[in-house]
Each structure stands twice: as structure tokens, then as C-alpha cells.
């Protein structure tokens, strides 16, 4: 099998449980992400999503297993992997623009001051921040604006891999929708590889090329990799009309509501990749059964 752009191999994370034993968050998690792909990871709280994210970001070390990007071992944080944190993590003493230039000048130390500012302003504009607002401090911006700045900071750095840790978790539904649209726009302009944690199924379907499903912890595993067979560009209002939408959504809900618990704790063989799942009803749409009651599950490669 050809190595993916980003490959996570037999990642295991254990913590001491405080009683002399060990607590395994996840074991032998292996999966790959291709260049330019947008991958979401879904799972219940405590399954270790954030731990995987921190390991990918280089902010935490796994108990065992390796992460390789472009064939290189990943260890420690790097400018090649940008992170958007759930709580924005903007530096409150800097203005929105300075928060972005802070990242850009770290990424491109040889750029002139004007070029850094120009580049940063352009990325802020991409997420809809222009004019006076970019000279305000984070405390003078709304939650949505702050997360826009954080996204602009991450994209402006043009990292090889962008990690988003529940970026919309703290936002209200309306703001979330707008910023999701902006995220898609920025992403499609840049062909950035994105790995995102989310709790929101609809958000995952809207954004992702592929959704990784995790079983419940402890001993969580990355069980399935669901391909989102809805063509881009996707528009929030239209994708619900797509025949595959509810089939995929039902599959995801079913997994999270039932199978994530059933599959939990099962020992996994090392090197086991998540089962690929492809749900596509568009071929069958013209056949005799116009409204299939059950989604068709087909494993590709495998």
C-alpha cells in the first residue's frame, strides 16, 4: 500500500490510572490522510480525539506509535502543522492583525514587514475581516470574529497540515454556519490538507471528504472511514436534497448512537486500518426502487 501524505501508525496512548494500573485511551490507531484532503474525526467525548490532535500537533507524545508526514517522523510542534484551537488562543494584548502577523513573521522570517502585513490582511479579508475590525483587540471582538482571526492566522501560515480542534464548538448556530462557509471558501482556495475534530455530524458532512469514526473509550479505535459522496461545491441549503445526504447521515448517527458502544473495547490487530465505507445512492436513484429504505453499505478495497 502506498504511504499516505500523513500516516498515523499504531498510535497508542496510555495514562496511569492513579491506582497503579494503566488506562488505555486508544490503542493501535492507524489511518492515513492524503494531500489536499479534508478529514473530520467524529466520536464521543473521552475517545481520545483531542489526544490524537495534540499528538499530530506535536504538543503531546504518544505512549507508542508514530506519525509520519511526507515520510518524515513527526515529533514536537512545527510550523508545518498549524493548529486552530477551540478557545481561539489569540494573544489578547495584540490586535487581530498583529495576531496574524505574529504567525506569518514566524513562518516567513525573511519577508519584509510590508509583505507580512499585506499577506495577513489578505487572509483576514478571506474570512470576512476588513477595515477597522482588524485593528481591534480580541476582547473587542465577538466569539465568531475571534475564531475567524484564529482561522486566518492558521491559513495565512500555509502549513502542510492544518489541525482544527472543534473550532466552532463555542459558537452559536448562525455564526457557526457563516464561518463554516468561510472555512470552505478559504480551504478551496488553498488546497490545504485539513484534519478536524467535531461533534457535529452535519458540520462534518458539509465540510469533509472523509469522516473517521471512533468507538468509545477506553480502548477506543478508529473503526470506520466514511467517504462523503456528495460533490463539491457543497452549499448548506442544497446538500440536504442530495440523495446520499440522509443515507450518510443515518449511517453516522447509527454508528455514534449504537455501534460506537458495541465496538468499544474490542482488541484491534496492529496495523489495522479503519474499514472504508462508501455510501452512494446516486447510481441506484434511477433504478426500480426510487426510495431505498436502507443505505447500501459497500466496502471498497478493504
Amino acid at each position, binding site marked *: 500500500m502506498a504511504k499516505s501524505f500523513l500516516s498515523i501508525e499504531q498510535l497508542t496512548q496510555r495514562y496511569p490510572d492513579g491506582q497503579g494500573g494503566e488506562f488505555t485511551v486508544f490503542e493501535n490507531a492507524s489511518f492515513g490522510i492524503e494531500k489536499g484532503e479534508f478529514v473530520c474525526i467524529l466520536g464521543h467525548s473521552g475517545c481520545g480525539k483531542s489526544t490524537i490532535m495534540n499528538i499530530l*500537533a*506535536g*504538543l503531546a507524545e504518544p505512549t507508542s506509535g508514530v506519525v509520519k508526514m511526507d515520510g518524515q517522523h513527526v515529533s514536537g*510542534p*512545527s*510550523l508545518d*502543522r*498549524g*493548529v486552530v*484551537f477551540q*478557545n481561539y*488562543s489569540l*494573544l*489578547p*494584548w495584540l490586535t487581530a492583525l498583529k495576531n496574524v502577523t*505574529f*504567525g506569518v513573521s*514566524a*513562518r516567513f522570517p525573511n519577508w519584509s514587514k510590508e509583505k507580512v502585513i499585506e499577506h495577513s490582511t489578505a487572509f483576514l479579508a478571506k474570512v470576512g475581516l476588513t477595515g477597522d475590525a482588524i485593528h481591534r*483587540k*480580541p*476582547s473587542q471582538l465577538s466569539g465568531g470574529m475571534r475564531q475567524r482571526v484564529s482561522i486566518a492566522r492558521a491559513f495565512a*501560515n500555509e502549513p502542510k497540515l492544518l489541525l482544527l480542534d472543534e473550532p466552532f464548538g463555542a459558537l452559536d448556530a448562525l455564526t457557526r454556519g457563516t464561518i463554516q462557509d468561510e472555512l470552505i471558501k478559504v480551504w478551496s482556495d488553498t488546497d490545504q490538507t485539513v484534519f478536524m475534530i467535531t461533534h457535529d455530524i452535519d458540520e462534518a458532512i458539509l465540510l469533509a471528504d472523509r469522516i473517521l469514526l471512533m468507538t468509545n473509550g477506553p480502548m477506543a479505535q478508529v473503526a470506520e472511514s466514511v467517504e462523503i459522496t456528495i460533490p463539491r461545491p457543497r452549499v448548506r441549503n442544497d446538500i440536504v436534497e442530495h440523495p446520499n445526504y440522509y443515507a450518510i447521515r443515518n449511517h453516522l448517527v447509527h454508528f455514534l448512537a449504537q455501534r460506537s458502544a458495541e465496538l468499544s473495547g474490542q482488541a484491534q490487530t496492529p496495523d489495522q486500518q479503519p474499514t472504508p465505507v462508501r455510501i452512494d445512492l446516486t447510481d441506484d436513484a434511477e433504478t426500480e426502487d426510487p426510495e431505498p429504505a436502507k443505505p447500501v453499505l459497500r466496502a471498497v478495497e478493504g
Partner: protein
Amino acid sequence: MKALSENRKAALLSILILVVGCLIWEASIPAQKAVGELTEYELLTGGGQPKAGVPPPSQVLGKAWEQLSNPFYDAGPNDKGIGIQIGYSIYRVLTGYALAAAIAIPLGFLIGMSSVAYKALNPFIQVLRPISPLAWMPLALFVIQDSEMSAIFVIFICSIWPMLINTAFGVAGVREDWVNVARTHELSALKTAFTVILPAAAPTIVTGMRISIGIAWLVIVAAEMLVGGTGIGYYVWNEWNNLDLTSVIFSILMIGVVGMLLDSMFGLLQRTVAYTE
């Protein structure tokens, strides 16, 4: 509009309190008896000499005018202008304070970043901190053999603790997220310290600096009373020896004014480094 009128009300009230206070003070000072009314016995026992007493505010005001109109005259070791005396005190305070800051802030950074350093140094800090700075004076005089330097040392030792403790506290309290931002941007340790940790901890550090300058100004008066020679503390004590209470009161007021100015400078600094999350 309302806030302005509130400020005005407060200002008017302040002036009223000042005027009333001064009037009561002025009225409560018994007038010196005129020579003509004295009995022969009183005259013989020196009753005609002006008696030392608390001067009325009008006299203090006259003294202030006289001193402030020529603050930098120098007529020998015991007769220098108020400006020169205050200048000496400020010089000592700032020298001792700068030395303390130069040590306390880097050391505070170290203690704040490393819990081992914190635990190792904490017992020393806890024992040394409550010592009255003047208790160091005999030791300082013996070791340093120079009264000027000893006064500076006393300022140094009293202003180091609030800065050290606040710096350590501020640095230790920097949010993990901000440090992670620095880490994901591959900032060097030095760059992280200056661009992330320092601005994040600055409000706490400046609060410590403000407390320190206040303490330093309190202590310099006492220290100069002990070491003598020059300075506002020496001036107060010297005027007490001269039984010139007008000058004593005037210099007390000057100590207050200079202390206020030093404090408000740090208040200004505090406002510039403040941020809201």
C-alpha cells in the same frame, strides 16, 4: 455629561475639605503673646522669645513658597534646597530599585517557569521577605563601609521581594494555550519569553513593581534618617533638630507628593500593559 459633573462635584468637595481643614488648623494654633503684655518675670525667664509650636498652615504655605521658588540652592552641608534633598532621595531609590528589578525579574521568570526552582528558592524568600529592611542596615554599614551605598542596599533589599514574587506568579500563571501558540509557531525560548510570556505576565509584574516603588519610597525616609548627610529623610530629621516644625511639615508634604508622582508613573505603565481576555 453625568460623569463630568460627578468629577466636578468631587473636586469641589475636595477643595472644601482642604479649606475647612486648613481653617480649623489655623484657628486652633494659639497666638503668641505680644511682648508688651508680659510680666517682668516672664520677660526675665525668656518668655519674650518666640515659642516653638505647631505652625499654622499659612506659615507652612509661606515656607513652601520660599523653598520651592529656589529649590536647588546649596549653602553648605546643613543648608541645601528641597530640590537637592529630594533629588538625592530619588537617586538612591531609583538606583536600589533598578538593581532589584534587574535581579528580581529574571529570577522571577526562572522561578515561574520551573517548579523545581520555585520549591528550592521558596524557603529563602519566605524567611528573607518579612525582615524589616532597616534591620539590614547595621550589617550593610559594616560590610559595605559606605553609608550612601548602604542606603541603596536597603532600598534594594526591600523592593526586590514584591517584584520577585509577582514576576514568578505572573509567569507561572501564563495560560497554557498561549504557550502552545508559541510552540506551534516554533518560537525559540528567548523569543517565547519576550513575545508571549512577558506581555502575558506584564500586568502582574508591573503591579509588583508598583508595590515595590511604594515600599522603597517609604523606606528611604527612614534609611536617610539613620545614615544622614543628604536626602529628604535626613532633611526632616535635621529640621526636627533645628526645631523648625514649619520645614518638617513642609517636607512631610513633599514626601507625600513625590510618592504620589512615583506611584502614578507606575499606574500609567500599568495601564499601557493591561489587557482584557
